[in-house]
């Protein structure tokens, strides 16, 4: 009985969480321009989305493209900057280390609006013309702390002797770095990259303030402008449905992969504290 109550509670909350998503998904299969008005089954919205036909959906696709380009560039640069920074911070001691860690925490504590407004003022102050570059710089500034936090624990787990052994065996410092250190940091770098990537994809407020007036749109800003004009572009419905399905598949793959890794790790009796779900928790801790 208790078990039944507990499980029905979980299911009720889940149904409430998913009802808007399912609602959108269902109405992506009808032609009506007004959401909630069923005019028979149709794949027309999907067709429009891909053919770029119908008013507005071509700019929708360019917004999707921008979102991805910005996320890839910002996440890559954050990963490089963050990994170098993590190696540096790891080797710092005392006051300086604390200062770096404190500074690294600021972007994570700042709400999006403040990050956006403050960067906007910076670019105004410096006289930067705002567009792609400023959005990417802004994204790097809030993504890098998460890369640092994903790489640092790897460094602590690392056996420092391997690096020195490489040097003793005649490797140059840069060889030792690329052949010994970086390969061992790779899992942290990869999870940092994906964290940065998803955060950049999801961002609205920071992009909104730093994109300037050149008409640069990401998916978030597109939706915002669209909704303010009244009425959502109907092609957003199939787009959201597809994004949802892709994420669902990715999460399943990722989880199977993680489960396998945990099994492997357990075999080796090395249970890393950065195992399953570290991605989720980082992402969740982001807005704190």
């Amino acid at each position: 009985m208790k078990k039944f109550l507990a499980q029905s509670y979980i299911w009720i909350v889940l149904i409430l969480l998913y009802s808007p998503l399912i609602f959108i998904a269902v109405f992506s299969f009808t032609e009506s321009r007004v959401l909630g008005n069923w005019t028979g089954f149709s794949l027309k919205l999907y067709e429009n989305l891909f053919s770029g036909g119908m008013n507005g959906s071509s700019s929708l696709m360019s917004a999707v493209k921008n979102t991805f380009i910005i996320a890839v560039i910002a996440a890559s640069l954050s990963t490089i900057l963050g990994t170098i920074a993590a190696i540096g911070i790891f080797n710092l001691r005392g006051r300086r280390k604390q200062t770096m860690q404190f500074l690294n925490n600021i972007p994570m504590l700042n709400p999006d609006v403040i990050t956006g407004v403050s960067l906007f003022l910076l670019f105004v102050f410096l006289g930067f013309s705002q567009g792609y570059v400023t959005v990417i710089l802004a994204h790097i500034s809030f993504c890098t702390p998460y890369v640092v936090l994903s790489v640092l624990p790897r460094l602590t787990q690392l056996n420092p002797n391997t690096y020195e052994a490489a040097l003793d065996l005649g490797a140059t410092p840069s060889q030792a770095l690329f052949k010994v250190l970086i390969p061992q940091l790779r899992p942290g770098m990869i999870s940092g990259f994906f964290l940065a990537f998803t955060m950049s994809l999801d961002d609205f407020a920071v992009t909104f303030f730093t994109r300037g007036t050149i008409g640069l749109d990401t998916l978030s800003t597109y939706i915002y402008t669209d909704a303010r004009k009244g009425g959502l572009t109907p092609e957003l419905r199939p787009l959201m449905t597809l994004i949802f399905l892709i994420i669902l598949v990715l999460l399943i793959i990722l989880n199977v992969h993680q489960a396998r890794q945990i099994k492997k790790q357990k075999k080796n009796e090395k249970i890393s504290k950065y195992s399953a779900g570290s991605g989720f928790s980082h992402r969740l801790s982001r807005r704190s």
Partner: protein
Amino acid sequence: MIKRSNWSIPYFIFLILFVVMPLVLVAVFAFQDGSGRFTLANITRFFTDKDALATFALSIEIAIENTALCILIGYPVAWILSNKKYNHSTVTIILFILPMWINALMRTLATAELFNMLDFNLGKGTLLYGMVYDYLPFMIYPIYNILNKMDKSYAEAAEDLGANPWQVFWKVTFPLSIPGVASGILMVFMPTVSTFAISEFLTNGKIKLFGTIIQENINSSMWNYGAALSLVMLIIIGITTLFSHKEEENMEEGLI
């Protein structure tokens, strides 16, 4: 690797440029008038502006209500999910996190449209529903995390010593999970105050939150007043962070 400590320098410079400088500029702009002279007018304007103060109070009120609702709804979810008796699979946990990967604006709009279709009047009720909807996972996850890692022998010991399930929960499990709740509060409270867009969508523009008035001022080129409002918010963040600093320290392990 000793010499590699200077590898933190590029990031240090980056942080100074793109994190510290912008925040300093917020303070600088807040104490300037349009032509760059020092003034306190922006700050005094906020404290005498009835609308801004009312928005501020409303934002805090909604944030408190949202946080409370998230705890009330989210804690039982986290507890059930962490309890081996009721839940064996990680799939359910993933199901709770999955919606967060969908663009937040899109989810919010979908919620608003759903209310529209059901002929609900958009207003404070729907705003709260949407806020809880958006932030619930941020409350569930840290609590789940700490409950899941908790040493079950404490609860068992209490049981062995004759505590009933109710007592076990309130005297053992709940006090041990407080750091998780604290970190959940941190993740829900401040972001609620600062959201914009979400409140507009869910109330048809009827209710503005503090984030919205910051955005409106910046967008209509009232940078100095916008900066002053941001400064007010920064100070509140500073206070909340200091306030929960201890809890946060306890939580660091749990978050990871």
